[in-house]
């Protein structure tokens, strides 16, 4: 088997990356990774409400990938009737984060509409 043979075929993207880059409050559809360019105001991202049958097993992620002079807040609001898991493991209607560059959160929705936290990167000191 050649080194490159099948390279791109067996690496199906787990989750598409949205083309739009978040620079202000927005309503976003689950199922994609949204990139966030940190700004000098707080952002609120509201997840669009879709049927449970549609969102079950679906993922949603945010990534702060550019920095600002100061670190502002980032609020992720769960879809109506659904809940998001925070880093403490609690299911809540909205999650408070920061626009700290490098921050990453990923959720996977179960059949009851609970968005379970499955990916979590907090940038910190280099070891």
């Amino acid at each position, binding site marked *: 088997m050649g*080194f*490159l043979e099948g*390279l*791109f075929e*067996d*690496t*199906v*993207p*787990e989750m*598409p*990356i949205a*083309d739009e880059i978040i620079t202000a409050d927005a309503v976003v559809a689950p199922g994609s*990774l949204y*990139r966030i360019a940190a700004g000098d105001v707080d952002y609120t991202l509201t997840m669009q409400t879709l049927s449970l*049958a549609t969102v*079950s*097993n679906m993922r949603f*992620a945010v*990534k*702060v*990938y*550019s*920095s600002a002079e100061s670190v502002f807040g980032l609020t992720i609001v769960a879809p109506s009737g659904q809940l998001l898991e925070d880093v403490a493991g609690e299911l809540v209607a909205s999650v408070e984060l920061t626009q*700290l*560059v*490098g*921050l*990453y959160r*990923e959720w996977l929705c179960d*059949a009851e509409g609970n968005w379970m936290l499955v*990916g*979590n*990167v*907090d*940038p*910190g*000191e*280099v*070891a």
Partner: protein
Amino acid sequence: MSQLDRYFDTLATRGLPVWPEIAVGENSYEPGYVYTFEAADVTAFFGIVLHRVADVAGMRFALKCVVASEDPALLKISAPDGQRVEGDDGFLSTGLVTCGSQTLGAYREWLCDQDGNWLMVRRIEGGGSVLPFGQIVIQGVPVVIQGVPLVNTVPAPLALRQPPRPVIPAVIVPRARPVVPPPGPSLPEVIELEDAFDDDSLMNALGEKLRMAQTLRAMLDAVLYFPFTLRTTSVDSASFESIGVLRLDATLFGADFVLTAELEVSASGQSVELQLYDLTAAAVVATLTSSSTTTENQTALVVLPLAGHLYDVRLRRVGGAPGELVSCRSVALRR
């Protein structure tokens, strides 16, 4: 909706395959895989092989430390030319970035976006044992002989060494239903059909009906033709020269065969001799002769042993002059 709905679909698109060999040394690695590596006391450098952003957008790249070092050094990664990679500090860089130390269990995973930024999306610090993998410990004390740790050399977990296997979706299909006869009047257990071929003229001396056997024999006769594979069809040698061989076991067919050959000579006054030679028994079986300058069929009845033998057909020129070829266009044994 079933609990299992889309289960396999999810699996099929989740897995980031593990490269089957442990990565060694400073090198560039193809994206799309998890690379395992052994910790060392010097900084480890990993580079991502350059591909077009259109090809790698949505692709992942990951590193996992699976073998410990007593003094793990830094782990660094570099982006491909024109692309950027995120370090532990969250910043994207076109150069080398640090992504932790080579602590046992450390894991980093990046996802490439449409702009060629390798975004860190998984980060596990590890921090497991700093003893070498397989270090033998007795009552909590690592065994060291003359400064060298005593290590069990059982390889790292197989799951990390096996090449990625494709996930095959499973589909459950309904069990085939048994055929149930339609309701109605009871059916007879057997249906009687009149034998239109029941003819005593087809009976042999023992009273057995032969029509089927005869039909089969006729079919078999049509195919009982065993041609020799010829390496040449012409010779000018005055002594016998082998032109082809055939291995045949006559047990299934009976001993009586016909040797049939198409022979010709190139000039008047000469003749051709074809010899069937049993190489296994080292004996001449039959000889065919022709003096025709046009292709002529010659045959001979032969009796073959009822065992597997290797047969040779040999050809020679009789009379004429050297350079004047004699030929056998084809030769076969048939029933």
